[in-house]
């Protein structure tokens, strides 16, 4: 293997790993290659990635090598991660969503009386994430806001399809399929294998 290929392979391995990869580890993967040559490659790679000045670079961290995002994009990354996290809601948030969904339009006080705890924090987060919205005000003393769910909520929970319930007969059918659906040995040995990465 020439040096270019070796460097590419090292890059690939470090990339796939996620965790820092030590020189020792790399030496194990390339038993035919001198340790000094691998060290040399790593040194060059560190320089090359620094010079390229891309959004990711190779870092020498805690005795290993790891790809990291370049400093400077952290705000955008946080912004992105926040959006990815949009659908990851806490248990508390779930409860509040459920209460609002079934009792809407509903006030914060009503939600709290069901949950028995303060919910203002959670409600603000849900408003921010567009899962609930203010539907109006309740005509009682203090005129509190009334909350309800949004279209985004329906989307997240895939609610439309839940109306399409199967009949008893169809469930029977499923159970029958369960029995006949056991993979015949002659057909398919896939189950015993590892899952796809």
């Amino acid at each position: 293997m020439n040096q270019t290929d070796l460097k590419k392979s090292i890059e690939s391995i470090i990339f796939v790993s996620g965790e820092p990869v030590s020189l020792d580890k790399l030496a194990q993967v390339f038993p035919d290659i001198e340790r000094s040559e691998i060290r040399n490659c790593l040194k060059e790679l560190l320089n090359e990635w620094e010079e390229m000045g891309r959004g990711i670079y190779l870092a020498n961290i805690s005795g290993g090598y790891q790809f990291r995002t370049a400093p400077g994009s952290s705000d955008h990354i946080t912004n992105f991660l926040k959006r990815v996290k949009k659908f990851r809601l806490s248990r508390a948030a779930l409860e509040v969503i459920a209460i609002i969904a079934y009792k809407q339009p509903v006030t914060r006080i009503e939600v709290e009386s069901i949950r028995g705890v303060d919910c203002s924090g959670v409600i603000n987060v849900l408003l921010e994430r567009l899962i609930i919205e203010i539907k109006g005000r309740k005509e009682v003393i203090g005129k509190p806001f009334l909350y309800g769910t949004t279209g985004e909520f329906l989307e997240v929970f895939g609610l439309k399809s839940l109306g399409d319930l199967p009949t008893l007969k169809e469930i029977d059918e499923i159970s029958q399929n369960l029995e006949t659906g056991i993979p015949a040995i002659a057909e398919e040995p896939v189950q015993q294998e590892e899952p796809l990465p």
Partner: protein
Amino acid sequence: MKNQIPGAGPLEPKEPCVIKINLFEGPLDLLLHLIKKNEMDIYDIKVAAITEQYIEYLELMKVLNLEVAGDYLVIAAELSLIKSKMLLPKPVIEEDEDDPRAELVKRLLEYQVYKDAASDLLGGEVLGRDVFKREPDREDLGIEEEVELVPVNLWSLIEAFREFYDRRKELWAEDLTFIIEEITLDEKLEQVVNRIRTLGEIGFERLFTECKSKFDLVITFLSLLELIRMDTVQIVGESPGSSMIIVYSGDNHF
């Protein structure tokens, strides 16, 4: 298959030596193989010869203790039928007479198209074989102690039920299935809703672990579907394919 380590006991009778047929993926695949082996024109299959060889293969498979699925026998019967049709004397030769082989040839050609397409799929850079992606750090993505809500639709619910059933069906012993179940769907529904209400939430699979029969299992699942329809419970999943959680959401409706 008869090879045994000296000193080792006989093979467990519960593990029959049924071997996967690696060479052929089904009867049509076997037929295509035979046609190719005999260098026949697919549009002009010598049915008698192919039928004979096909049946020889099935016999061989039996001798070798390979499982011969019913699908192979279906095609064998079809071949025999075509063969006999072709042997019938033709009193009047009609120009438009259908070739008894036409239907089979059409099927073989269609199968061939998808067989080729399957190979073509592997022609690219296959993830996990040729190329790899970075497994993102769960920490990087801030996935911690938070339940990720994924849209859980009915189909995934049914899939989860089926997977669970597949995995655990040995637990519902056959002799339990004939126990006469007197519980009705309404009664079961009441039981299920009480259980979920008490717990607040319950793992999808845990709901079924106490089921003692297939009937119980199915009726419990039906109750669950009914409760979803009534908006009394909700199903959330932590990620696609992972276990689902049934969350009680209340029986008050506006």
